[in-house]
């Protein structure tokens, strides 16, 4: 048994009486007004008369119904099911008696409410189980006290407390009032993985019924009394800023209340790493309804002017960092030529093993290939939005965002109110993929509400969303491999860069498996805002690396999977260097599993298959992708996928995520692209930006998990990056041509 001190979430376990009366008590409760179908159904069945709060994650009703507050915001990974499962497992309660409620932002009670970096489950693995286990222990203590029997003899299972010797028995609900008054135990025992009854067994999405019946769940769905609709007008090009606005014509339009300008940051404010914002000065238009505001927005007369170059210090995740923002209007063609020029020059050496220069000099053969990928827009189905009601020095906000704690200081500073006066609800996000980690739009909503002195919902149009992006950067990588006279691989050299960040991971495979290795990087400054996009940097490097390794294997006449396994064997048995960031065994494990499940045959001429494997977010994923050409178009027939992410909490939900990652990867590999001309994004809606649709999605996806008892690691991102390599490698088999530059298909099909 794992005994754990409860100190690590101790503040979270301190009871807060204001919550004891139930519900999300925040004075206002947007999310409560959109009670879930689950809650409605249970209300009909059995709603307790009284709730007893055991800790900030759970309360137990007098009839045994349990409410679990799920701490992290949801954007589709189904953590609103899997996180409460962790609590319920240790509490040992019947899942049917569990109600899930979304916790509001509250750092003291819920810790780091961060949805991103595939860290949700791994970061919550212990604290949430501990919340359940401590409550269970308190219930046991309450029963022991009530029955006057030793604690050790009381069992608690499936919501029932029992004392065998005296045949006493009570539901959790009956003991909850006593349990809630007891002190939190100093230590708790967590279950062993093998004893799980709920975790690792697929549970249905707790929100599915609300979703399929159209209940209001999303930020976009919020309707409050007296709420106005706001939209913003941002510069049409990166590199421009607001000069002046004439809002008279717009204001004269029906339903329009006001036209205001806002400034997202106070002068001198030190930004955090997620305060990214290319357009901090905006025009906002506020009116009664979305359609009216959309119409009036067209009447705004705004003048824009070029920005001047500047540098700023950002307090990011990895400490303070200075970034340079150049002036000017950038174009994709210029980016490309600049990238090619830098790729041809020496970069900054980040890692060097052995003597790559000599190995390349002595090589009998050198294989050199360059890969590139464009900027990508996130294109979440739900455009950016936020609700804000600022009144005096208080703000009530509902923000569909990934990292609430990171934007609170900015909101407080920009509004000029104390942080403590901001209440924030976390409605469901209609997709996130990294974009909603950058919550500038919440600051904008708050500032607009403050200016017009009314509750407002800020709504971005699709065009605003796509052209005011925090994009996946454009990248470039050159790989070189040296071979000796026996066709053995003797050295590998990677040089990668991008606008404005480098995608390189110098210590990832195949580093560690090759005696002579060098990794270099370079960057080009830009004023186009960029940020995290599902598996940042990996989403490019995996494709480049795995496509290159495929060509290396082919050059050596080796089977693509066996070649990778041979390298991993080397990395395991006799690793080169000490900083290799992957576990060669687990890496090989997913390749072996995918080889078995896909019935992979060496040099199989009957299928056009591509294999690819990658490690990121502490997990391992491998795909075998089968593709055929039909009327000149690639059709993905089947993808077999193997993942090692440790214990899988909710297998069917994880499978859904992997299927989504594969489809997303194929879509972006084939079609994903945003280009710029003189600072202007060249696509602004789905008639121009091609998204993968059902016709292009794989006909079949078959997901397998490596079974082990390792604490959970990332899941949302890891299956995504290797898709790009699998697509490239299968495309080569199907067409005889290697594809080096994404998107692989550029012809757009118009769908209506």
């Amino acid at each position, binding site marked *: 048994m794992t005994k754990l001190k409860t100190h690590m979430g101790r503040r979270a376990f301190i009871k807060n009486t204001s919550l004891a009366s139930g519900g999300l008590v925040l004075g206002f409760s947007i999310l409560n007004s959109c009670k879930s*179908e689950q809650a409605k159904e249970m209300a009909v069945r059995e709603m307790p008369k009284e709730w007893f709060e055991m800790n900030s994650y759970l309360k137990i009703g007098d009839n045994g119904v349990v409410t679990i507050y799920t701490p992290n915001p949801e954007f589709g990974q189904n953590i609103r099911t899997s996180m409460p499962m962790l609590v319920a497992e240790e509490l040992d309660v019947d899942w049917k008696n569990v109600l899930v409620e979304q916790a509001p932002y509250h750092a003291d009670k819920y810790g780091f409410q961060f949805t991103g970096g595939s860290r949700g489950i791994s970061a919550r693995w212990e604290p949430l189980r501990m919340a359940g286990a401590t409550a269970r222990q308190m219930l046991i203590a309450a029963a022991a006290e009530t029955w006057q029997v030793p604690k050790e003899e009381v069992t608690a299972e499936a919501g029932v407390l029992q004392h065998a010797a005296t045949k006493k028995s009570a539901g959790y609900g009956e003991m909850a009032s006593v349990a809630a008054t007891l002190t939190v135990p100093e230590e708790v025992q967590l279950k062993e993985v093998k004893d799980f009854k709920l975790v690792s067994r697929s549970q249905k999405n707790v929100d599915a019924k609300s979703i399929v019946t*159209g209940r209001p769940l999303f930020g976009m769905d919020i309707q409050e009394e007296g709420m106005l609709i706001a939209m913003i007008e941002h510069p049409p090009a990166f590199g421009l800023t607001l000069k002046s606005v004439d809002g008279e014509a717009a204001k004269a339009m029906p339903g329009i209340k006001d036209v205001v300008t806002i400034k997202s940051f106070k002068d001198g404010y030190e930004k955090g790493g997620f305060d990214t914002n290319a357009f901090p000065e905006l025009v906002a238009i506020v009116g009664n309804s979305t359609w009216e505001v959309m119409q009036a927005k067209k009447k705004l007369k705004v003048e824009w002017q070029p920005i001047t170059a500047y540098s700023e210090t950002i307090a990011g995740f990895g400490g303070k960092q200075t970034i340079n923002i150049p002036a000017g209007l950038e174009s994709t063609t210029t980016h490309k030529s600049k990238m090619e020029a830098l790729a041809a020059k020496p970069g900054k050496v980040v890692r060097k093993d052995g003597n790559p220069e000599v190995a390349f000099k002595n090589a009998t053969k050198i294989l050199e290939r360059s890969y590139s990928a464009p900027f990508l827009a996130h294109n979440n189905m739900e455009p950016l939005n936020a609700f804000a009601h600022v009144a005096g020095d208080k703000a009530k906000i509902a923000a569909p965002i990934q990292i609430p704690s990171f934007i609170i200081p900015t909101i407080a500073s920009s509004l000029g109110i104390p942080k403590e006066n901001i209440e924030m609800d976390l409605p469901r996000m209609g997709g996130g993929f990294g974009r909603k980690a950058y919550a500038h739009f919440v600051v904008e909503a708050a500032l607009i509400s403050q200016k017009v002195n009314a509750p407002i919902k800020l709504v971005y149009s699709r065009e605003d969303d796509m052209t005011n992006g925090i994009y996946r950067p454009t990248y470039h990588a050159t790989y070189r491999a040296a071979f000796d006279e026996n066709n053995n691989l003797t050295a590998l050299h990677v040089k990668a860069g991008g606008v404005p960040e480098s995608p390189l991971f110098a210590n990832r495979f195949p580093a560690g498996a090759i005696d002579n290795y060098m990794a270099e990087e370079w960057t080009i400054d830009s004023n186009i805002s960029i940020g995290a996009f599902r598996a940042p940097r990996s989403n490019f490097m995996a494709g480049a690396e795995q496509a290159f390794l495929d060509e290396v294997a082919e050059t050596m006449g080796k089977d693509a999977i066996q070649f990778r396994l041979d390298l991993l064997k080397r990395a395991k048995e006799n690793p080169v260097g000490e900083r290799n960031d992957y576990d060669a065994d687990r890496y090989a494990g997913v390749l072996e599993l995918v080889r078995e499940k896909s019935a992979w045959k060496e040099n199989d001429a009957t299928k056009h298959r591509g294999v690819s494997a990658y490690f990121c977010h502490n997990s391992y994923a491998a795909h075998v992708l089968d593709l055929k050409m039909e009327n000149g178009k690639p059709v993905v027939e089947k993808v077999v996928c193997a993942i090692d992410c440790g214990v899988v909490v909710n297998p069917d939900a994880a499978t*859904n995520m992997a299927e989504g990652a594969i*489809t*997303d990867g194929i879509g972006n590999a084939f079609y994903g692209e945003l280009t710029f001309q003189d600072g202007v994004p060249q696509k602004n809606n789905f008639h121009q930006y091609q998204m993968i649709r059902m016709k292009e999605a794989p006909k079949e996806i078959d997901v397998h998990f490596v079974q082990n008892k390792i604490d959970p690691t990332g899941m949302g991102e890891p299956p995504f990056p290797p898709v790009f390599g699998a697509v490239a490698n299968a495309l080569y088999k199907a067409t005889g041509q290697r594809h080096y530059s994404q998107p692989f298909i550029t012809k757009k099909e118009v769908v209506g």
Partner: protein
Amino acid sequence: MAIFNLNINGETKEVDVDPATPMLWVLRDHIKLVGTKYGCGIAQCGACTVHLGDNAVRSCQLPVSAVGEQKITTIEGLSEHGDHPVQKAWLEIDVPQCGYCQAGQIMSASALLKRNPNPSDEEIESAMNGNICRCGTYTRIKKAIKTAASSENV
């Protein structure tokens, strides 16, 4: 502005709006039925799909003035208890990820099954091709449509 009496989910709703207002915004902002979603506003994503009579239409392209007496069904009115065979199949297959596109997907799928109770894969793909799912749930959507098709009373 003009007054319209609309038949929404079997109830008459009166709204006073600009005749050019798309049904999407009439539903969301004026009738407060927010299950119908805004995704693109230009008939490219399908998030706003509703039924006009028995047909799936993009409500972002349907001005309120064009509706007249035709019946409109939204996701909220597809069934009384969320038990339309398509909704049931969606639950059985546990289709949604973020869920934002799913109302539109379900409205397209239910209209398809009404006119073609036993669609082929190709027919499903064609009928559903106007509905984007950014989360990539297409394989599950297809499976759910087949599940619904094989159940009775579509």
